[in-house]
């Protein structure tokens, strides 16, 4: 009996993974990642950085930014700095929860739709139907039924963005399903679940991960819009959208009520977009190929 000698596993030569090195090489992506980490850290450690966002100091209402209140105070004397910092916490929470929600729903339905031709039509028609609404309109309508609360905001935005994830996953599954290694797996008698979970899913994850940073950005934006419109999280919750919506009424006397939470939203979305663009160039080989082609062409 002959034994085939398998090469021994190569020792880990590099300490930093290759994708991290590639990611760090692009300055804009690094800036985006740094800002993003900062927002998440500020959000998670909000109580460490700022006092209570609900404490009212009525005597000091609508005071401009000063040493005690860096970002000024609002119409009932709450500290805007503290509301912005705690707003980051809510945005990070909503963003992360929506990503998890839409990934679970989107990946599962995309995987099943792509893998089982019989399920493809029913699942994707439902997704098409959900995507026939402008995102914000569907979110408003769902909030009308669910009622204002943080959990409901997450559910509503999650429902809005799941079909977008599902579509991306299905597209990749349709391609990967036809590859030789999946066929080989099937020939070896692998079950559908093994095929989907161990062979197909890991290979269609990169576009999904890229999608993740955009879904995160969209969720932060949609939450702010819903709260701004008065149909998002309840008014007492410190949220950038809520603060903006209250500040709108005092825009002439107290522009800081709009400027600081506004800057926070912009910076967060900008960071996520920068990071997402970098991630896409890195992870999506198709687009990366196109780009190198483009560089060669010019």
């Amino acid at each position, binding site marked *: 009996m002959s034994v085939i000698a398998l090469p021994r596993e190569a020792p880990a030569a590099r300490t930093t993974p290759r994708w991290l090195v590639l990611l760090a090489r692009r300055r804009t992506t690094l800036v985006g990642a740094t800002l993003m980490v900062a927002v998440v850290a500020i959000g998670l450690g909000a109580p460490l950085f700022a006092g209570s966002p609900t404490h009212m100091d009525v005597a000091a209402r609508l005071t401009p930014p000063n040493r005690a209140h860096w970002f000024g105070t609002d119409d009932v004397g709450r500290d805007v700095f503290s509301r912005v910092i705690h707003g980051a916490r809510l945005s990070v929470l909503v963003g992360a929860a929506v990503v998890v929600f839409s990934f679970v729903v989107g990946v599962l339905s995309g995987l099943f739709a792509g893998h089982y031709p019989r399920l493809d039509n029913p699942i994707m028609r439902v997704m098409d139907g959900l995507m026939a609404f402008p995102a914000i*309109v569907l979110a408003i309508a769902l909030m009308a039924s669910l009622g204002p609360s943080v959990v409901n905001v997450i559910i509503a935005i999650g429902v809005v963005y799941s079909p977008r994830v599902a579509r991306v996953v299905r597209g990749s599954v349709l391609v990967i399903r036809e590859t030789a290694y999946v066929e080989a797996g099937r020939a070896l008698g692998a079950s559908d679940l093994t095929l989907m979970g161990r062979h197909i899913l890991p290979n269609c994850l990169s576009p999904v991960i890229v999608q993740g940073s955009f879904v995160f950005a969209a969720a932060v934006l949609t939450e702010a819009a819903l709260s701004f419109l008065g149909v998002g999280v309840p008014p007492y919750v410190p949220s950038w959208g809520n603060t903006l919506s209250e500040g709108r009424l005092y825009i002439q006397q107290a522009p800081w009520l709009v400027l600081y939470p*506004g800057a926070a939203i912009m910076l967060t979305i900008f960071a996520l977009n920068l990071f997402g663009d970098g991630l896409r160039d890195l992870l999506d080989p198709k687009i990366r190929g196109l780009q190198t082609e483009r560089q060669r062409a010019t």
Partner: protein
Amino acid sequence: MKTYVVRRLLALIPVALVVATVAFVLIHLAPGDPASVIAGPYASAEDVQRLQHQLGLDQPLWIQLARWYGRLLRGDVGDSIFLRKPVLDAIADRVEPTLLLTVFATVVAVLIGVPAGIVSAHRHNTAADQTVMVLALVGISVPNFLLGLLLILFFSVQLGWFPVAGYSPLEYGWAKTLRSLVLPAFALGVVQSGLIARITRSAMLDVLREQFILAGRAKGLGEPALVYKHALKNAMIPTITIIGISFAILIGGAIVVETVFNIPGLGRLIISAVLRRDYPVIQGVVLCIAGVYMLINLAVDLSYPLFDPRVRYQ
């Protein structure tokens, strides 16, 4: 072409069915039953029961759903609980500002986004290109309602050039209407132009690499003719697609921005309906917007042969 149009129209049916079902589900998702919501907090138990029977809410769910489809086919979305008039009338009263704002904003977005994308592609990897792309990314990152507030702060509060808020209906003259829509249209359009610029740029980059551009340059064609006549024509399809999608996205954006500028359009209608739990109005507005959204997407698809004769549908 004809069969393609018919096929596309038929493909809309399942999507429309899902849309109608979502609108139906909305009222049943709500906590408490719809009849007690409609009757209000002070209604007696008998009143609620009578209303339940009247609305057919005591029937099995699938019968209610079938009736809902039937009513929609007849174009009946019901009456507003609060406004005491048919939902369609309420929508008709409010559609003018939203429609004008969306069109105006799309024009702004296209006028900024398409030239920016072209310049960026033509001067690929130069300072001009990088500036446009950074600006486009900033544009994508600013929520439209925030830009609206900033525009009010600068142009209305500081400079006093435009009204702080409000809408002047067409019957008082289009010039006033236009003036009242300048800031909201820019708030929406500038944000959207970022996306249009990015797509136009990558479409143009693809075309500028083609052999026929090289051939044109070799035979001595001037750069303007090359870029605007030959390249742009071939980059039209992705650009038209994104313009169509932009119009559809801007309908949703208009709904948000209307609140910033106190414009009495569909956005104010649906938000006040949400706050009053006026479900028929919510359903009506949502269905109406989804319908327009689907038709725009269809129109975009069908318009491809107009811009590129090589596209043939069979």
